[in-house]
């Protein structure tokens, strides 16, 4: 093959190979894309091994050892810690409280989130304002949310107590033994419902209006419209949100710490709080680590199971297409 220059101007010959101001092909272009990618990922990989994988493995080791809290001497203990934890009635009490808390939070948060999303889909005066303000609880630090609600719930200076007083009702203490868990769950829901509301609203807004018009023409009532049109569209995002909130509730610590500190009388001693007490107050590493592993495994299995169920083909948005 030859190089032919147009006869007209004998301008400078442009090189077939372009000079990049460097003598050789740069290193990053010489290696394969995979190697280039791995080089960019390497720092994160090293870091995660050092500060996540290694600690988690170390925690497994701790859960299988006896540690003397005063001398720090460790010896292998096999599954002793797990046995000790599993035979402790306090552990089962905490497990029950955790389940109770997770259920309360999930129900409250999804109800509030769905209600808010459905409300925000309507047209009303001040909708943009509400839309903007609704993220406020979510953008608060969780510990700050704890302090904020302390000022609502406190029987001494709380807003609810004050309202009860002005209405002439008996003093109201929502953080008492029987109501502590639902009250905490309410705060948790207050904080995490906005996320769900936005998430669900995004899904609601893709439902074509024509579907509702069609349903009205067909004489469907409001509940049937929700069941046949709305539900298929929000099923999957709703499931994802429920898993997210449920998982978070199982791990909740900040709120409990500030609002009840596990009390009164252990009435809100969920697993995370129990782990905190066991490990950092009583310096009992082995059982603490064992409990944290039990919690981790249970939450992971439940979450994975829920995802599998929710993403099963034929559920979720496939049905939306048929509707």
């Amino acid at each position, binding site marked *: 093959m*030859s190089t032919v220059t147009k006869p007209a101007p004998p301008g400078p010959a442009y090189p*077939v190979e372009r000079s990049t101001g460097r003598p050789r092909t740069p290193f990053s272009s010489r290696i394969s894309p995979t190697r280039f990618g791995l080089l960019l990922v390497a720092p994160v990989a090293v870091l995660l091994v050092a500060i996540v994988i290694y600690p988690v493995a170390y925690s497994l080791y701790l859960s299988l050892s006896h540690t003397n809290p005063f001398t720090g001497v460790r010896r292998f203990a096999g599954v002793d810690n797990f046995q000790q934890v599993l035979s402790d009635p306090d552990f089962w009490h905490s497990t029950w409280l955790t389940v109770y808390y997770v259920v309360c939070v999930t129900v409250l948060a999804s109800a509030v989130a769905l209600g808010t999303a459905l409300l925000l889909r309507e047209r009303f005066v001040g909708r943009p304002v509400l839309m903007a303000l609704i993220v406020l609880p979510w953008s608060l630090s969780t510990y700050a949310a704890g302090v904020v609600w302390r000022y609502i719930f406190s029987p001494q200076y709380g807003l609810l107590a004050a309202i009860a007083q002005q209405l002439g009702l008996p003093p109201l203490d929502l953080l008492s033994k029987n109501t502590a868990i639902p009250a905490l769950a309410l705060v948790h829901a207050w904080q995490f419902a906005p996320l769900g509301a936005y998430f669900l609203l995004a899904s609601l807004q893709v439902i074509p209006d024509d579907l509702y018009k069609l349903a009205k023409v067909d004489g469907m009532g409001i509940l049937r419209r929700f069941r046949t049109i709305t539900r298929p569209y929000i099923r999957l995002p709703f499931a994802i949100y429920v898993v997210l909130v449920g998982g978070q509730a199982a791990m909740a610590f900040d709120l409990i710490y500030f609002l009840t500190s596990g009390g009164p009388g252990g009435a809100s001693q969920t697993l995370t709080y129990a782990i905190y007490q066991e490990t950092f107050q009583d310096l009992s590493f082995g059982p603490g680590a064992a409990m944290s592993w039990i919690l981790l495994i249970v939450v992971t299995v439940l979450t994975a199971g829920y995802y599998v169920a929710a993403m099963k083909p034929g559920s979720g948005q496939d049905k939306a297409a048929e509707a």
Partner: protein
Amino acid sequence: MEPEVLQVGISVESVTKRYGKAPRAALDDVDLEIRPGELLAVLGPSGGGKSTLLNVLAGLEPVNSGRLRFGDEDVTDIPAERRNVAVVFQSSMLYPHLSLRKSIAFALTMQKLPAEEIQRRIDEVAGWQRIDHLLDRKPHEVSGGERQRSAVAKALVSHPALLLMDEPFSAVDAQLRRQMRTELAKLHRQFGTTTVFVTHDQEEAMSIADRVAVMRAGKLVQVADPLTLYRRPASAWLADFVSVQPFNLIPVEHQDGGALSAFGGSLVLKPPGGPLPQRLDLGVRPEHLRITRSESSAFRILTREIIGGQVKYTITTDRGDELVAVRSDDEVLDADTPVDPAVDWAHALAFDPDSGDRLDVRFNEVVASVS
């Protein structure tokens, strides 16, 4: 003004490219000579390998085997940044965060050219592409047509040895596309840079290219100038692919007396000329299928579509066989009119029924047949 241009011939020699462990190679032993200064269109359905060919020519994808030469130089192992090619990317992409001026100048700044030279070259291409007044805007602040012109300016500014265009008109509407096509042809006349233009639109390829290379399933099916491609397509698939209207492929059987029968005897054709192969499919473009009103015919008009000066008829038998014919709108026939199809033998093609390859059969005279 006459720009300074280097016209380089490109040769692709037995190039094979396979992505990972994919069962089929994206480029399967491709040989292609691109002549200095020509505008070559690479045409094919999506997944045919045309984008891979563009990436390989640009140096964006390494090849598994084979060589690439620009002029006399072997560039196989030279990466994109040193290959002196320019690409107009799909949807006329420019850097989204830079002004048009900086986008256009980017390649030159990477080459560390002096500022005055960069300025001179930008003024030059901006003048040609009529975008002088837009240089300080961002890509999203200009229209699709202006973005297209800027993308071409960006490509030309570095005086590339090879200009590659990857479906550059895919994001604009039909009318603008036609206008840009003409502009590109003019620009190529003016510049003469060796250009490879990738498209899936046969009309686009056939209208502006010096030659068209058709790719399918990683292989080059045919490389030819547009007229040859149209008149002498290598296969029935290709004939259909480069046809504007649906291509009539008629399976025929021999009858006594040199006649051919099709569709269970609904259509009997008497081709002129010598003996025909034992088995063949007859290929007739709609514009070469003439129809005339005839009460005795087995065919009647199913639909008619009026397309600027011409009418496209779909005709059918009671069995459901369909043929497409195009004729002038001097007389428009109504639906259900019985018509008799006849073949314009000078333009008829014959194909092997099994492989689909074109058979070298010439039907010499033009004879209308009667069914």
